[in-house]
């Protein structure tokens, strides 16, 4: 009697343990959906609109990967993560790719067992202050009260910057960007520090943006990019090369509008290789030939994604700066498709 119960319990245990980790690509394909970890709300990067459709720069990137792998940019399940749950969600397999403005650092790459699939946004930490304070340099901020999102690398950068410059400050930790913005506007802190892109969007949303200035010092390097689990090379390659394809597309002049036309063949062999007309790059990646074509068709090339979510046409009005192509003085540089 008791024995049979044990057997059943053991059977149940065995049944639960039977689901071993398969390759992420196979898993995504069999699931039919890409699980993508995003922030639950950062203006311009990810936020749901009134219809519940996620929009933003990080979101567009996930849609490109979904288009490349599954053939449909809408086959993405967006999993909102917090600064605290993001890495665990990735490690546990809850999400396949984390696209949440996460800085590529040494310890995250090695100690937290993550693989950064590349940088799709070069950011830097800056300070936002009210003009009336009369501060023109971060060096004048001795004794200031600083709003800072807790649990991020910006917090550590801030502590280091003030220590190096032998200044003191009073940190006001905030939970989210929206909260920091509110505290700053109410004057609960003199300075709001965060990634430059974030602060630009915050400033743009103010009733009169010209009353606020971004100080010239950039106190840190924040290379942001998508992350995958360590140990699945194929999946890391797919995410990395999808990103690269978007860069290459901008470089080669492939846009959302002309991608279908160019896919029928062009006189540039690299475009042909990229869009699957020549060679079999897709197969090497474990996908079909048209993967990059679909990824580009999803939201356009890198420049188009930037323009629709962060660029001049948006309330955020971010300049390309470091995120321009290498040919235009930026850092965006696609590895050759060969």
């Amino acid at each position, binding site marked *: 009697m*008791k024995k049979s119960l044990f057997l059943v*319990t053991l059977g149940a*245990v065995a049944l639960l343990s039977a689901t071993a980790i398969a390759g992420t690509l196979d898993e995504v394909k069999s699931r039919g959906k890409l699980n993508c970890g995003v922030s639950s709300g950062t203006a311009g990067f990810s936020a749901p609109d009134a219809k519940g459709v996620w929009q933003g720069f990080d979101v567009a990137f996930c849609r490109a990967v979904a288009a490349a792998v599954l053939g449909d940019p809408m086959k993405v399940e967006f999993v909102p993560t917090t*600064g*605290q749950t993001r*890495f*665990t969600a990735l*490690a546990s397999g809850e999400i396949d790719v984390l696209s949440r403005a996460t800085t590529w650092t040494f*310890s995250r790459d090695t*100690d*937290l*067992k993550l693989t950064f699939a590349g940088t799709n946004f070069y950011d830097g930490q800056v300070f936002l202050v009210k003009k*009336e*304070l009369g501060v023109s340099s971060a060096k004048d*901020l*001795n*004794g*200031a*009260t600083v709003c800072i999102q*807790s*649990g991020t690398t910006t*917090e*550590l950068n*801030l*502590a*280091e910057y003030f*220590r190096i410059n032998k200044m003191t*400050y*009073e*940190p*006001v*930790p*905030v*939970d989210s960007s929206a*909260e920091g913005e*509110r*505290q700053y506007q*109410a*004057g*609960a*802190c*003199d300075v709001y520090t965060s990634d430059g892109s974030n602060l630009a969007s915050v400033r743009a949303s103010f009733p009169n943006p010209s009353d606020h200035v971004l100080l010239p010092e950039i106190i840190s390097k924040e290379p942001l990019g998508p992350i995958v689990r360590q140990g699945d090379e194929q999946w890391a390659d797919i995410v990395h090369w999808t990103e690269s394809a978007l860069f290459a597309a901008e470089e080669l002049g492939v846009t959302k509008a002309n991608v279908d036309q160019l896919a029928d063949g062009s006189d540039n062999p690299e475009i042909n290789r990229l869009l699957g007309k020549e060679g079999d790059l897709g197969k090497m990646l474990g996908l079909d030939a048209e993967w990059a074509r679909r990824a580009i068709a999803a939201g356009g090339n890198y420049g188009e994604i930037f323009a629709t979510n962060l660029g001049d046409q948006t309330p955020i009005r971010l300049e390309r700066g470091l995120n321009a192509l290498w040919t235009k003085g930026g850092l965006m540089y696609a590895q050759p498709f060969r």
Partner: protein
Amino acid sequence: MANAITFPTLEPHQAFRLSMLLNDGRYRSYTIQIFVLMCLMLGIAWLVDNTIRNLALLGKDFSFSFLWSTAGYDINQRLIEYDTQMTHGRAALVGLLNTVVLAVLSCALATIIGVVAGVLRLSGNPIVARLTVVYVEVFRNIPLLLWILVFGAIMSEAVPAPNAFKGENATAGMILGAVAITNRGVFIPEPLFTRDLGTLNLGIVEPSLNAIAVLVVVIACVLISRVLVRHANRVQSQTGVRPVIWWKTMTVLAAPPLLLLWALGFHLGYPELRGFNFQGGFQLRNALIAMWLGLGIYTGAFIAENVRAGILAISKGQTEAAHALGLRPGKTMRLVILPQALRVIVPPLISQYLNITKNTSLGLAVGYMDLRSTLGGITINQTGRELEGMLLLMLIYLSLSLIISGSMNAYNARVGLKER
């Protein structure tokens, strides 16, 4: 004959059959317990085995060494020495102290508000009683998190920024020139000494010797004055005449501490607007105040209900008897009703104190750096040690809860009705 009834005695040598394990009441409980124990062990073994395998898969080990590595992050409210170069363990300790301070402050506020509101709700004044009902219902039925956010917002939106205190046409001023209420916190004067006795090095904390000296003297004075009062009581009970001692106790209570303070060169340090902020003085940060008000007023609504129930539980005869003795309503409440109601009120009060302690963990919502935000937040986030960090966090909260319920239960046993 009662003795004629013979009980069927069980044969002591009756052969033991396996089925008796299930059917015989004497053995069945053992069977069940052994079965439960086996299930429990099996379950725990399964969990531990999974954890070990998962850790191995992730290439992580199980160690608490991260507590001794450099934290690197800043904590604005610190009761003990801390800077970014200290360890994660130290940061956790700072957070723990912040949690305890917040819990103690909130318990005190909630008790005061709860008792006042509970009594007012029963007052004959309809406006006051209605308003108290509104307060209790509004606070009880809306989530605490929302209240904390609302108080956080009020503290930063409705209160002037330090800028408003500046210049010729300042729109805000300090209260009595000593207290500044700004949206970065409330600044109050701090005690300062011109002669410093140094600090006492206890390894982890270094309390100032001045504070210790003052504390010791005050406690000693209180003890001596109690001896005086006891002596007066004894004389009164023996002779019927109470000796006049008020001037003695006053001298004993006041003179030595004042002398000590004078000797140490005590003065108040007033907050002053310098640079971006008020400098000097004691800063009660916004996050602390928002959490304090949120927890205190929210939990006060629950305590008010407990107090009301406790007062209603005292029979009307007690009130009438007190009135018959000629006690005024206020005194009736203070001397007759509340002491008795306390017995009904204290047990639910304990669980409210426990709730407050646990709810301090919501501090992150307004950026209060408590244990949850330091050890359970930034430290875990930076080191990736979720398992160790969460275990430690749970253990600490559990010990806090056990300490509170233990001490409050002891108190409850003391005030409890000694029935014969």
